[in-house]
């Protein structure tokens, strides 16, 4: 730990998380653990067709079944206009959202909701689903992004007008974006070598272990309570209010503990259905997705089809990059084409860049955010092709990255000029790491790759209440998805000057704290952390005022130091310092409760950079890849709770390894998902992985009181290319499509053998 870290008493220490005991004893209440009395059960009827007109739905027999209390279809939701409306930081198209939660004119993917039932038991609800008669007219479907862009492809939305591009007639292209810097023609003219390649990545699911779950209860006077597992209770409130036409004040959303999200729980699926079923039945309604429903109808992130072209001088200096990223969006627009373009080569100082992106609809579930949305896809292309350049020029792959590294003052191709950043540090550490210098055995290879993610700020509100015994409660509205309560409590303890275990952080419902944007964008420890620090400072200001009152001096003459009010100088008077607990104990006599508040739209997120090193062993007989060793080096700004920072890095790397080696959706010829379960959609298990060495680099973000950058997302950006580069290093075979699963790699190895024999 750096010496600078020791200037803090709590920040940077590894304390036990406040919610820990609940989570190791089974007490913690996750989404489906919640129940209320009188509750009934809701189930969803889903389309078995990838693309079909819904000609009619007959629910009469289901409604007549004993025990059924309510049945809903899209007719029960008012239609929404196709304009974009603000919701937190994002813009939402409610026309699409209402069609995604319940199919309207057409079913657009296997698993698309077409009706929902609430009944006294889940078994009766399931039986009722079988009594609903849907008359479908099955249409041709399209699953692949390249196919969807071809002339004559089945069109999902006849009326869709693409943004950013003019196309005569119906299209599946929802949006086109482009970013440029300098002059790529000039850059390629200057290059000694030019390489151009195509790449493909599969859509992958966030794979949270907790399926979506909700309990909704609407009273006769229209007041709704919703308990659900979500990354953003305020988003759930906004979406349900708009979709059901209810005033925001009549909806109170309480987030449960959340069993993973990774971006996939920033949207709604069941919440509006359960709320409407409750309204219609007059009873609280519980709904939980099965794992099959999670795979067929929620998430995933985009799959991509890319081309990258790169030019470089003999010394390794990259002179130009051109790229194109075609991302599948699922049934409605919203693929992260912009971030994919913006992040692809952001770790590098390249003067001439042109990158474009397409957001393309296909007959799959609508994509949701997944950890650095878009960036891992484009980085697979960019970081693979940089590796090829290094090999072609005979330059060490880390040296070429260092030679081209973005630094403070570098203008990124997507616009901004970087402030203090730590990318080059991650490369330097990688170059000197004993992992990078360790020998390799037969069939083994080593790959490296880097990654970038913006991180975000956004709206956060927090309250710090000083209790009468000198303890404090920190109230925030950011669901804690991986230890953020611990980091908020550490920063509050540091700012107040009291012990960590005297601070109790809670995650409040939408009626108990000001607005908070979702837990996402790696924003909570940064942005909500900043609001908590400011709220604690507000409490400190009030504590100083109380001391001033007691001492009968001006408030400005009192300073706060190590949990005590002290005279600013000896000129103020000779007063014994007053501790926080003594000021708290007499608060009623000095002006009443001491409550610090802060609410703001936080700016100044510090970008995150990472460099990963991966060793693999390839079994030439089977094509199986074993990851032998993995090191992930990341600039985190400041690690508030180093253990949970390491955890984010390790978890992100593990997800990236799964994306690289195994995870994919398998659709049959009818466009139905054939692997909607953990047995066939294979996320990494403990025996698939080695230890993941997380190396923390701290280049503080000057826009945060404790230097925090976001941490959670960038670790998933480098792994796919790091693994591919390692496989190439082991076998000489360059894999340009994910996943690099045994059958695919074996086929590529066999093809290489055939080619070699022919030459």
């Amino acid at each position: 730990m750096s010496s600078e870290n020791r200037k803090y008493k709590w920040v940077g220490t590894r304390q036990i998380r406040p919610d820990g005991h609940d989570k190791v004893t089974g007490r913690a209440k996750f989404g489906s653990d919640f129940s209320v009395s009188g509750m009934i059960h809701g189930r969803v009827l889903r389309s078995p067709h990838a693309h079909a007109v819904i000609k009619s739905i007959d629910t009469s027999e289901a409604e007549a079944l004993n025990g059924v209390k309510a049945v809903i279809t899209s007719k029960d939701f008012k239609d929404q206009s196709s304009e974009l409306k603000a919701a937190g930081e994002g813009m939402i198209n409610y026309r699409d959202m209402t069609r995604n939660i319940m199919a309207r004119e057409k079913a657009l993917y296997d698993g698309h909701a077409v009706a929902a039932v609430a009944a006294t038991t889940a078994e009766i609800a399931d039986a009722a689903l079988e009594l609903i008669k849907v008359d479908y007219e099955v249409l041709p479907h399209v699953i692949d992004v390249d196919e969807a862009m071809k002339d004559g492809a089945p069109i999902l939305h006849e009326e869709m007008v693409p943004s950013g591009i003019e196309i005569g007639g119906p299209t599946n292209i929802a949006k086109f974006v482009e970013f440029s810097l300098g002059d790529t023609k000039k850059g390629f003219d200057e290059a000694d070598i030019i390489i151009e390649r195509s790449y493909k990545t599969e859509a992958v699911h966030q794979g949270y272990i907790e399926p979506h779950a909700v309990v909704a209860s609407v009273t006769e006077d229209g007041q709704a309570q919703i308990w659900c597992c979500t990354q953003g209770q305020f988003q759930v409130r906004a979406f349900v209010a708009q979709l059901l036409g209810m005033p925001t004040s009549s909806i109170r959303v309480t987030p449960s503990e959340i069993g993973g999200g990774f971006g996939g729980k920033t949207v709604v699926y069941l919440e509006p259905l359960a709320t409407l079923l409750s309204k219609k039945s007059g009873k609280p309604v519980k709904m939980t997705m099965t794992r099959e429903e999670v795979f067929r109808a929620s998430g995933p992130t985009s799959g991509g089809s890319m081309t990258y072209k790169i030019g470089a001088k003999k010394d390794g200096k990259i002179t130009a990059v051109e790229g194109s990223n075609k991302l599948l969006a699922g049934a409605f627009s919203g693929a992260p084409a912009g971030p994919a373009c913006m992040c692809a080569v952001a770790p590098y100082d390249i003067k001439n860049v042109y990158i474009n992106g397409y957001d393309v609809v296909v007959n799959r579930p609508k994509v949701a955010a997944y950890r650095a949305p878009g960036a891992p896809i484009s980085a697979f292309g960019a970081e693979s092709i940089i590796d090829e350049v290094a090999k072609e020029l005979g330059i060490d792959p880390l040296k070429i990255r260092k030679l081209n590294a973005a630094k403070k003052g570098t203008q990124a191709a997507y616009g901004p000029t970087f402030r203090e950043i730590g990318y080059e540090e991650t490369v330097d550490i990688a170059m000197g790491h004993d992992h990078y210098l360790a020998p390799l055995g037969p069939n083994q290879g080593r790959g490296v790759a880097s990654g970038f993610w913006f991180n975000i700020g956004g709206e956060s509100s927090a309250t710090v209440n000083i209790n009468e015994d000198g303890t404090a409660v920190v109230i925030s509205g950011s669901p804690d998805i991986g230890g953020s309560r611990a980091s908020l409590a550490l920063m509050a303890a540091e700012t107040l000057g009291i012990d960590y275990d005297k601070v109790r952080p809670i995650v409040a419902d939408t009626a108990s704290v000001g607005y908070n944007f979702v837990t996402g964008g790696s924003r909570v420890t940064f942005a909500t952390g900043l609001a908590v620090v400011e709220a604690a400072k507000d409490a400190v200001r009030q504590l100083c005022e109380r001391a001033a009152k007691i001492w009968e001096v001006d408030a400005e003459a009192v300073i706060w130091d190590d949990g005590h009010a002290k005279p600013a100088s000896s000129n103020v008077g000779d007063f014994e310092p007053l501790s926080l607990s003594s000021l708290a104990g007499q608060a009623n006599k000095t002006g009443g409760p001491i409550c610090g508040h802060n609410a703001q739209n936080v700016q100044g997120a510090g970008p995150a950079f990472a460099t990963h090193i991966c060793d693999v062993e390839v079994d030439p007989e089977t094509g199986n890849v074993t990851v032998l060793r993995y090191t992930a080096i990341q600039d985190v700004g400041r690690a508030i709770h180093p253990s949970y920072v390491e955890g984010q890095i390790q978890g992100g790397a593990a997800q990236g390894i799964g994306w690289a080696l195994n995870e994919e959706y398998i659709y049959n010829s009818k466009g139905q998902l054939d692997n909607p379960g953990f047995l066939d959609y294979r996320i990494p298990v403990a025996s698939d992985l080695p230890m993941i060495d997380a190396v923390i680099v701290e280049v503080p973000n000057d826009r945060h009181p404790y230097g925090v950058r976001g941490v959670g997302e960038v670790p998933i950006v480098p792994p796919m290319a790091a693994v591919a580069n390692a496989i190439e290093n082991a076998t000489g075979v360059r894999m340009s499509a994910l996943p690099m699963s045994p059958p695919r790699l074996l086929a590529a190895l066999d093809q290489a053998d055939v080619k070699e024999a022919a030459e």
Partner: protein
Amino acid sequence: MAKHHISMTLNGEPTEFLCSTRQTLLDVLRDELNLTGSKEGCASGDCGACSVMVDDRLVCSCLVLGAECDGKTVESIEGMADGENLHPLQQKFLEEAALQCGICTPGVLVAAKALLEKNNNPTETEVRYWLAGNLCRCTGYDKIVRAVMSTAADMRGDAK
């Protein structure tokens, strides 16, 4: 159809319940006995979030019927701590941050305890293969594996 009347020992206590034929042990624990510590991640035995012990055998409770449990001894996460004293694994998971979201944690702890009762000195590979049936999407398993091995060392009384 009439419900089954089942008597079993649950976390050391004699326990009776009625269940339908189709209810799994996981359904019974969660819906009939109000013990929601065991989680349902898949209902197909793939994720291990519902791991419990039945007669000292580690099982996915989503793959066992409630009606099968007559006369059995069942231990779930709720029975792991001894009064106000956490089991050493629970304590170590807290100290070493071997959980993030915590949804897989009850199943991982039950499975890890079963391992240490069979083998008090597992290798890293043994821990990884033993826990291969307990999916965790947050941690990358690193801190989980380390916490299990360091608990084993503590329980053996190895010098640090």
